[in-house]
């Protein structure tokens, strides 16, 4: 039927289409595979993994907000060893592209995780999470500090030849400065954005609804912010951008590509419609047909200002 080229290139990484499942919103792939055909997905980004298992934050971890949700999961994950032993085997059988997201509380830990996973053939690229708002150490302490972000990029870059993507925090004044540092230190791409810090209170008890007090805001509520961040990076820095934030349907995805994204990730929508990825890919194809676009990569940064 259609011979539209949906493939995109992020550094040396080629994806069959620009749709990626965002870290922390698909676990390790097995549950969501009940609802969707993962082999049609461009890439799967696994839940942030750390060197040692993390129990995560106490409940309540999530609350719904207008057109969004706050989460403070606290990077609950099985740890590197268990991840390699029990999670990678499932993902190996899935004909998608596997990107491992790494979180850490020290630069050494980022390096060690990357080194260990570099030997796993199934892992095609790394997404380095320097922007988790919900943990005390690491996370935003790195994400807010341009020198740390530069160092992490440099050190991780030194131990792998696979593409290195740095996932940036929106909780900074000039995100493009961070993207520039990533580029200068040899990073292949940036993901933007991680969640925005927010909170929500019970007005009768006067207590926060989330035990952690603050959480990360995701979902449609953050889309305009995310689009502006992607556009800012696109206008100032020449580096591939993976757009993230509030994508619910194919129109949102097209909008991200137009403002500068080479590829994009869907997060919160997976909780509501676990087959959203496939529906968005189908929508992109129809849009390209309708608009006479033969290569989807033409859309990237095609804005008219």
């Amino acid at each position, binding site marked *: 039927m259609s011979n539209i080229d949906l493939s995109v290139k992020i550094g040396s990484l080629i994806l069959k289409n620009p749709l990626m499942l965002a870290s922390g919103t698909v676990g390790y792939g097995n549950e969501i595979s009940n609802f969707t055909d993962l082999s049609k997905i461009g890439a799967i980004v696994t839940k942030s993994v750390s060197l040692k298992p993390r129990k995560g934050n106490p409940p309540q*971890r*999530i609350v719904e907000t207008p057109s969004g949700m706050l*989460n403070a999961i606290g990077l609950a994950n099985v740890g590197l060893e268990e991840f390699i032993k029990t999670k990678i085997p499932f993902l190996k059988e899935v004909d998608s592209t596997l990107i491992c997201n790494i979180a850490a509380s020290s630069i050494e830990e980022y390096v060690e995780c990357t080194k260990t996973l570099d030997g796993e053939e199934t892992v095609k690229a790394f997404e380095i999470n320097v922007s988790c708002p919900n943990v005390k150490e690491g996370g935003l302490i790195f994400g807010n500090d341009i020198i740390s972000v530069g160092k992490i990029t440099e050190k991780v870059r030194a131990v792998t030849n696979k593409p290195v993507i740095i996932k940036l925090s929106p909780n900074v004044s000039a995100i493009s400065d961070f993207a520039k540092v990533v580029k200068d230190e040899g990073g292949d791409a940036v993901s933007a954005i991680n969640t925005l810090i927010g909170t929500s209170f019970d007005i009768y008890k006067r207590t926060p609804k989330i035990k952690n007090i603050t959480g990360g805001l995701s979902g449609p509520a953050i889309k305009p912010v995310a689009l502006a961040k992607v556009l800012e990076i696109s206008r100032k820095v020449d580096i591939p951008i993976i757009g993230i934030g509030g994508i619910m349907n194919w129109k949102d995805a097209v909008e991200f590509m137009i403002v500068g994204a080479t590829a994009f990730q869907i997060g919160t929508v*997976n*909780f509501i419609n676990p087959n959203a990825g496939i529906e968005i890919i189908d929508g992109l194809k129809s849009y390209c047909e309708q608009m006479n676009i033969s290569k989807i990569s033409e859309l990237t940064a095609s804005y008219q200002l």
Partner: protein
Amino acid sequence: MFTSKVPVESVEKIQENIFILKAFSPQIASAIKPGQFCNLKVSETDFPLLRRPFSISDVDGDYISFMFNKHGEGTRILSEKRNGDVIDILAPLGNGFTYEDDYDTAVMIGGGLGAAPFPFLTRRLKNKKIVTLIGGRNEKDVTDWGLKNVFYSTDDGSIGFKGNVVELLISKFNDFKDSEIKIFSCGPTPMLKALQKFTVDNNIKCEISTECSMACGFGICQGCPIDSAEKDKYYLVCKDGPVFDAEAIVL
């Protein structure tokens, strides 16, 4: 687990603030077990954003029912559904009750809308005696819809025993002296906590159906932890529960 678009048959108001939504779904009806739950997309738009979890309340032939009270926006929208409206439902979710093991009497204990999963359990139980204890603040809070052999407790004594449902259980405890019982329970956390202590102290089989705010309902968001009796470990309410053995969790 699957998603399916399900037509609403009816929404019936059985009490001042208690509704029964009945829908036609042979697929869910044949797959779901008592104590499991469904995650309902209450509108076709992105508002409200998240699905809403509800216990399966009853299955009758190809029809499934949910019991709920109007709480916020999501349940308000559900209460206004009409015959022919379509709801997107993710089901069957979680682990239900284990009710076919060896005991004589099933004692179902519900606090308020905690009664929701019991009509289906009542329907499925074979060769067991049933006693149902339902507690609430007052008579408007409680219902015997789909239940058998019901005793009430209310805080204000407007119907049944005056006091809470755990006190009611203790007051009736002599009646069960000669038979082995298993308790199935669901309701607000303070009630479950009191019940958990009583059953563990007295070595009575007890399963507890828990609630927690959820995003996905099927194990991918890590949003629904509950403390386990094991040190340094959470269970996920949606995947490891919502029904747990009383000794397995810390409430």
